[in-house]
């Protein structure tokens, strides 16, 4: 069966790649995580140790909020941009997707320019109310940075999905008496389900693991990637940082799996 052999041959590079760059380092990471003074129990630290646990909750909440707000903003904007033709549309799309290539550090820098001590908002509020509004270094600044980071990505996915929507379905719903809100609820949102899951997953995972923005802004707040960084470089605590890394991966994965199975029924029905 030469055909079978050919398929196996094609799988070989994939297997090599997976083993060399994925499985081996991952295995090493998992082993390292258990090599601390507490042994395997080091893995529980992320849940048990109050400081770690607070950081974890912080990170998950931040990522979840980022995902939800990103989806809402990007859906409204993406739907409008895809469905309407107006002068300046191309420029607007270019502008909205411009931050795609920015590294997290640049995004953090932009937030500081906006809401830092010398920032635009602080300047403005100082002049209007005599008080400087500075929130770049709070969790809200970080949240804004993450939004800035994920909205362009999600908008593009949503726009592609909206383009593929069958306008006939919306017209059919309207002919049956459905007003604009009912059409969105019963036809458009269910059809966009798969796009929400896919782009939401990316937004969530990115926000969980984002480092550059956090590194620039998170002076007063702890998020997991920052915690791992400090444990690793400053405290040289390899075992803990490895355990935290694995924990971060597993928790992000578990939440995504949950979201997927939760929306699975609607997605399957829409397929």
């Amino acid at each position, binding site marked *: 069966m030469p055909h079978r052999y050919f398929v196996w041959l094609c799988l070989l590079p994939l297997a090599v790649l997976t083993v060399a760059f994925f499985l081996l380092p991952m295995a090493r990471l998992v082993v390292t995580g258990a090599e601390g003074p507490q042994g395997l129990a080091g893995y529980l630290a992320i849940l048990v140790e109050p400081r770690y646990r607070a950081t974890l909750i912080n990170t998950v909440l931040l990522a979840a909020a980022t995902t939800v707000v990103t989806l809402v903003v990007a859906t409204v904007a993406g739907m409008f941009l895809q469905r309407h033709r107006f002068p300046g549309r191309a420029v607007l799309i270019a502008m909205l997707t411009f931050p795609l290539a920015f590294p997290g550090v640049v995004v953090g820098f932009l937030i500081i320019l906006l809401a830092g001590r010398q920032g635009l908002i602080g300047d403005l509020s100082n002049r209007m109310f005599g008080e400087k509004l500075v929130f770049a270094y709070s969790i809200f600044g970080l949240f804004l940075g993450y939004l800035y980071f994920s909205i362009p990505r999600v908008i593009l996915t949503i726009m592609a999905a909206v383009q593929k929507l069958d306008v006939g379905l919306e*017209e059919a719903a*309207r*002919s049956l008496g459905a007003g604009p809100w009912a059409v969105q609820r019963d036809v458009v949102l269910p059809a966009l389900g798969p796009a929400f899951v896919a782009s939401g997953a990316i937004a969530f995972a990115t926000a969980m693991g984002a480092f550059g923005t956090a590194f620039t802004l998170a002076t007063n707040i702890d998020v997991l990637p920052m915690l791992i960084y400090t444990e690793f470089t400053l405290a040289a605590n390899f075992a803990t940082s490895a355990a935290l890394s694995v924990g971060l991966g597993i928790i992000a994965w578990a939440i995504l799996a949950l979201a997927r199975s939760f929306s699975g029924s609607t997605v399957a029905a829409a397929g």
Partner: protein
Amino acid sequence: MSVPAGHGASVRIETCGKTFADGTRALEPATLDIARGETLVLLGPSGCGKTTMLRIIAGLELPDAGGRVLFDDNDMTSVPIERRNVGMVFQSYALFPNMSVADNIGYGLKIRGMARQERAARVAELVALTNISGLENRRVDQLSGGQRQRVALARAVAIRPGILLLDEPLTALDAALRDRLRGELNRLLRSLGITTIYVTHDQSEAMELGDRIVVMQKGTIAQIGTPREIYFKPKNRFVAEFIGAANIIEAPVENGDLVLPGGRQPIGGEASQTTAVAMIRPETIRIVEEGAAPLSGTIDSVSFVGDRQRMLVSGASDKVLTVDAPNTVKAQAGERIGLLIAAEVVRLLPPENRG
């Protein structure tokens, strides 16, 4: 609960034209009256504006300024489709993929706030009416084309629309199924008595379903009439050729006869005419012995198609004539024959203004 006969609305379209944003003139201003309970068919070749006209009636397109759409003498022009109470069947069926068959059929009722039990009863009624029992809980992607068509129809009819609009509902189906569903659809429409506007480019579908047919050509109405009028008394060459096969002959006239290369053919026109454009349907020409008719020609070819045979005859007119003869007539290519054509079946058309 049974559907009361004739609960449809009457429709009037007044000088409705349509120019799209990109400048395409899809519809010249047209006026059309559709009686309560009537089935009107919009028939024409691709791109002639049938769908545009239907969408204007539905409320999915706004007519150009000056156009008005009236249902039962109420101006509906600026009423959106969701408040026009029209049932619509789309060519692609547009069934909701995230709902079961029963939920699709009941969607309009749910939107209207009908109670669950009453809704279920109405859905069951329509499931029976459209012969889809047993499929209620299927997902839409588990249905065949014919079943989808029935679900789409059931969904449109469920809301008891005043007007039912169908855009080529059978085109996506294979020929045998199309024929069967056409008959079923015809019976259903008659029994419901809803005012129906049916778009098709298939003339036999139009003939079978329509009380009246509107033949459209490049955004204009070429002719409105009953199937018989359209077939036997086409107003112009376009209608004559679009509906069925037609021989169109242009020839000089002498004493009420067409003067043709193969003889003289009496026509029922005015004696003062000097030339005429005449239409003769292939099945109205009788093949007889040469000499037994004023007109004669030579058979070029005979194709046997079962229920009849189609012959091409040259020499009678300056163009080859198409003749549909009964399948019992014995004739062969090369044979000379007479062509017997009654003066009444020759339809005179207005002179050509080709454009």
